[in-house]
């Protein structure tokens, strides 16, 4: 069973390395991700962000504009996830503590 686990991990690692060779180089202008028109013939959203981020929000940092403005709902979700993590930590640990106190 142990050897099977290691073998499956190794095979999967080899598969991932093989897949990584097929990726386009970073910053390649001819890669499909960096084209203005996607495969289906519609314009890609990122080109809109690159052209209009400074104009729309007066912000030189494009990443901030995408995170805070165009994709602000996603950021709100992230913040709620962190808040939920804090609340769950609080509730769970406090409940354990109460149960121990009741035993004593």
């Amino acid at each position, binding site marked *: 069973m142990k050897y099977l686990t290691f073998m499956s991990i190794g095979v999967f690692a080899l598969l991932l390395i093989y897949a990584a060779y097929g990726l386009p180089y970073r910053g390649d202008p001819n890669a499909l991700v960096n084209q203005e028109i996607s495969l289906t013939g519609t314009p890609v959203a990122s080109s809109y962000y690159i052209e209009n981020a400074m*104009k*729309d*929000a*007066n*912000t*030189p*940092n494009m*990443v*901030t*504009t995408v*995170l*805070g*403005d165009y994709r*602000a*709902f996603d*950021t*709100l979700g*992230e*913040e*709620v996830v*962190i*808040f939920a*993590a*804090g*609340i769950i*930590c*609080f509730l769970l*640990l*406090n409940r*354990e*503590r109460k149960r*121990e106190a009741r035993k004593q």
Partner: protein
Amino acid sequence: MLFGMYVIFHGHYSPGGGFQGGALLASSIILIRIAMEEKVHQLHFNKAYGIPLGAVGVLIFFGVGFISLIMGGYFLDYSLLPFPGMITAELRFYGILLIEVGVGLAVMTILVAIYDNLLEEDDDESI
């Protein structure tokens, strides 16, 4: 702590933002908690404020979105925030700044609150 503030408020010009700045602020507070003894380390930031201030941070974010919803736009559409005498781009600039402050506050307080909860558990076990 100063560096955390810098990271939050310069997120418009350099890499950074609410999450990173909040983590830096939390690290400054947690370092004080590690270094000082129990009576002293609560002076900067009492642990009773942890969860409520996190809720305030989330509410700042949600409130900014909801104000623009009330003013007749989409949810989180900053161009309709009720600040007088600003063009649309400036309004969006300050809208992003507001939500970054909200995110920073929430991340800082929640990280400190998680640390406090874990530490209390340890104290109980040692007794």
